[in-house]
């Protein structure tokens, strides 16, 4: 890691995003170090828009995004993955007609795609063992040869994480990884996320399920109507009147 002392791993500076007349994000700033950062907020708060900007799928209307001290906005999504930020999607996008193994392999191929090495054979002992290892870590080994589209939603979400992991990221952006999961599946997912953190990966997790976010994240940023309204530990955020207001409607 080339991270310099004192500079945050990821820094979003006064990012705004307008879609026509709609202001999805207004002057959003946040910083993250190596941590599990929760990004919560009501529907339409701009959480996914912020993810799309960080991961290069959308350009910001104004503001800057720095990763590891480098300006990254304006880069294409595949370049941002190469820099070390991988993501999952709120609406899962597994490669349905490929097997689970091939899905993970597609992430492991990341360093090969930009060069002539795209035209070397992909099944090598090392590609196979690394993919198997990731399947093992994410609990997907049993489904290695199954078509991704045949998996239930919980496993598809897990597969998206496995695929993102295969790109060897330093930072993972997870967009509502617990959506549609049973309580038990969510618990297993939380365990997986903690393991990833312990293995040295920084995570930003968008989450709707408050209990899940509160128990998982070390720090939480609350977005509402495109603005950061609160930031702090789960306990601080939970007792913040602005947050309660945004979620339940304020009393006045």
């Amino acid at each position, binding site marked *: 890691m080339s991270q310099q002392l004192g500079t945050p791993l990821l820094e979003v500076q006064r990012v705004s995003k307008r879609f026509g007349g709609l202001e999805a994000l207004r002057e959003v700033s946040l910083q993250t170090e190596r941590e599990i950062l929760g990004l919560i907020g009501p529907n339409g708060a701009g959480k996914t828009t912020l993810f799309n900007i960080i991961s290069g799928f959308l350009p910001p209307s104004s503001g800057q995004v720095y990763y590891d001290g480098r300006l990254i906005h304006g880069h294409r*999504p595949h370049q941002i993955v190469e820099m070390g930020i991988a993501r999952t*999607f709120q609406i899962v*996008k597994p490669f349905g007609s490929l097997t689970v193994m091939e899905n993970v392999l597609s992430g492991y191929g990341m360093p090969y795609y930009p060069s002539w090495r*795209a035209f070397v054979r992909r099944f090598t002992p090392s590609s196979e063992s690394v993919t198997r290892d990731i399947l093992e870590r994410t609990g997907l080994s049993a489904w290695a*040869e199954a078509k991704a589209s045949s998996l239930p939603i919980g496993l598809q979400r897990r597969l998206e994480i496995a695929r993102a992991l295969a790109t060897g990221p330093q930072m993972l952006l997870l967009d509502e990884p617990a959506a549609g999961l049973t309580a038990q599946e969510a618990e297993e997912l939380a365990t997986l996320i903690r393991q990833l953190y312990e293995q040295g990966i920084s995570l930003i997790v968008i989450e709707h399920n408050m209990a899940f976010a509160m128990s998982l994240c070390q720090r939480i940023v609350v977005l509402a109507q495109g603005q950061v309204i609160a930031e702090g530990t789960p306990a601080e955020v939970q007792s913040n009147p602005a947050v309660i207001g945004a979620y339940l409607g304020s009393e006045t």
Partner: protein
Amino acid sequence: MFGGYIISVAIFVGIWVTLALSLNILTGYAGQVSLGHAAFFGIGAYTSAILSLKYGLPFWVDFLGAIVVTGLIGMVLGLPSLRVRHDFLVLATMGINFVVVAVFKYVDFFGGAMGLINIPAPSILGYSFRGGLPYLSLVWAFAAFTWLVSWYVSKTWAGLAFHTVRIDEEAAAAVGVSVPRFKVYAFVISSALAGGAGCLYGHFIGSLFPDTFVFVESIVVLSMVIFGGIGTLRGPILGAIILKAAPELLRFVQDYRFTIYGALLVLMMLFQPMGLLGDDSFLWRSLTRLFSPPARGEPRGGEAEEQGPDGSTEPALTYRGARHSSLSKE
């Protein structure tokens, strides 16, 4: 004479097998549906004919020239695919086909409507051959080469990247695939191979006319790919053989042959939309069952190495993917 006729048909079939396989890389692998493949076929044919007629270059130079020039033009003409997707791309490739044919037709350099005639037969070491078994072998050797390229690509990282681009461009970008780059790769490989087929066609027929490369021919090639089984290594071969040979074999029904041809396509799309030899087609399933009897007790999951964690939570999965999933692992 009869033998000569059969050989001629076999030469045409070989050329169209090459075309179908080359289009399969673009459309079957990378998911870029093109209705302009005949344009690249034509560009290859015209390039080699001009190199031969106007510059007097030997056949092998024409052949390589056709492949290189068509590949480069494919790169340029593939650029619209970076901006438009799906049905809009289909229309754009159609437009490309019209433009290319118009250039052949109205630019004198390309012979105009009178076409290019007297294209010399290829000759190696002074031995010249047009048609016959030597030419047949040449055509099928190139078809085999095209198949080898398709097979090799399917084993590479690029092959996997093509799949990701076809299935979901956003997810492809999220795993580090530069979607534009791989679309251009697919256009280059696909059109270069079609250019080689064009050269073989021109030097066999001996004369070229713009109308040979019209948009309808692009539909025929795409039909071959879909009819046989899009995205597979075997389907386009069978599709091209059947759809190219059928009009010849159906000569006895005279005027009705295109009715039968059309009906065949409609029936296929209704009942076997994945193609005759597609992964889930009746024929392919039967064939694989026939030649690899499954292990006892497992109807077709013979190769599933691992079972679910326990019986109760194991979802109903088909492990068919293991062996015959789209090209990716075999």
